[in-house]
């Protein structure tokens, strides 16, 4: 095996199960994310993507399985330890989830609240993040003054403000027009180049997957049905797989 570079695993999930009453959503889902990799998880609505992501971020407790983030089993971590780990992970919510009552600047400063750093340093980080998403002029605006695309960019700026090692994107292009969606995808690539972060992207947007995926997993009926590169999956003869690429 000489010459084969072993990449560091940033995040791994194994045997993840979750049910709501009689409805079994995840039936033993497995995955891993390597350093610097863009992993796309595709699945139909109700296939368990959101549940998986919520379990991953500690917003929901799985019934069984294990979740390792940067070598730590998050299901065994104390709340404060998990909070520290969460600071190394950026999360872009599907609906942007900007805080309505705060300006753009306050939204971006929010993850920095408990960081022991002077205000000047916080201001630099805010400006740097806004510059990365090309919205320096929006610094004093309120979320209700922003368009859908601008909200998504500001949410992205908030997700990267602490220079995370992993960024999780939940449907990053859903609800956006094709041009804005392309801009967001380009931004995701730029950010990865700039910060060298790994990305876990949950989407059902084929165009987004084609541009950004290093590897893809299709989540069907609560399990990872198939795994491979975009071209491998898009050329598959399996009807279940083809349904995603039509």
């Amino acid at each position, binding site marked *: 095996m000489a010459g084969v570079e072993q990449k560091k695993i940033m995040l791994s999930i194994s045997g993840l199960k979750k049910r709501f009453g009689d409805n079994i959503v995840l039936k033993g889902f497995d995955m891993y994310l390597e350093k610097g990799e863009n992993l796309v998880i595709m699945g139909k609505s109700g296939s368990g993507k959101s549940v998986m992501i919520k379990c991953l971020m500690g917003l929901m407790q799985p019934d069984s399985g294990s979740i390792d983030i940067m070598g730590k089993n998050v299901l065994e971590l104390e709340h404060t330890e998990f909070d520290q780990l969460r600071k190394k992970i950026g*999360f872009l*919510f599907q609906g942007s*989830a900007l805080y309505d009552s705060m300006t753009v600047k306050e939204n971006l400063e929010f993850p920095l609240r408990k960081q022991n750093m002077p205000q000047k340093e916080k201001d630099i980080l805010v400006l740097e993040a806004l510059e990365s998403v090309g919205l320096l002029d929006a610094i004093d605006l309120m979320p209700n003054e922003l368009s859908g695309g601008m909200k998504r960019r500001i949410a992205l700026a908030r997700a990267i403000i602490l220079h995370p090692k992993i960024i999780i994107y939940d449907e990053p292009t859903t609800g956006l027009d094709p041009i804005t969606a392309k801009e967001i995808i380009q931004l995701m690539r730029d950010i990865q180049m700039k910060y060298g972060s790994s990305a876990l992207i949950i989407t059902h947007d084929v165009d987004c997957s084609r541009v950004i995926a290093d590897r893809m997993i299709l989540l069907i009926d609560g399990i990872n049905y198939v795994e491979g590169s975009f071209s491998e999956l898009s050329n598959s003869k399996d009807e279940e797989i083809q349904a995603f690429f039509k």
Partner: protein
Amino acid sequence: MNHILHIPSSVKSFLIEVGELSYFAGRFFKEVFTRPFELKELMRQCYQMGNKSLMLVGVTGFILGLVMTLQTRPTLLEFGAGSWMPSMVGISIVREIGPVIIALICAGRISSGIGAELGSMRVTEQIDAMEVSGTNPFKYLVVTRIMAATLMIPLLIIYGDAIALLGSALIEYLKGDVSFLLFFNSVFDALEYSDINPAIIKSFFFGFAIGLVGCFKGYNCKRGTVGVGEASNSAVVFTSMLLFVIDFIAVFVTDIFYN
């Protein structure tokens, strides 16, 4: 035997809700004494609830004083007891009517406002966003709001009582030629600590109930925008009911202690 033990679903869901509310209150007491303390947010909430309710409470209190005096005056005059007017109005406003009416007004403004705000934050994933950014949303959103309501409602009630007495004094001055000085002298002569203390103590419980129910309904909001409306609406209904229960208990306990 089965049909005797059968509990109607509405009663069952009410009991479950009371249980969940108690658990929520327990979590508040667990988190309120632990670090980090969100003092900046607490101050902001105190300002939002206190300062921004002054107009509403002031107008309500003033009209309360006016109406009470106008309605009661003819009856007292009929019995030749017009001079009892200030003491009667003073005691009833400070002991009972002021705290209850102002708490109900605040339930309408503050409790429903908290329910709608937190409910909308829940359905738009803002609470989840807070959690994934390493902030404890319960501490930041819930503890601060309940604390602010517990601290501000007593102050608003004292302010509302004072304005109500002013309204009453104005009617006495206009209709009965009673000077403001004489009116307030009579009021303070009639008031005793046993009138003031229980009213102030129960107003803290009113504030706690207003904050608690509003936060409980909003924080646990489900079912999208419909859920936000329901959270806001049920926060007012549940709080109002709880205020009367607290008032009854307070009157009952006061009666034991002072009689």
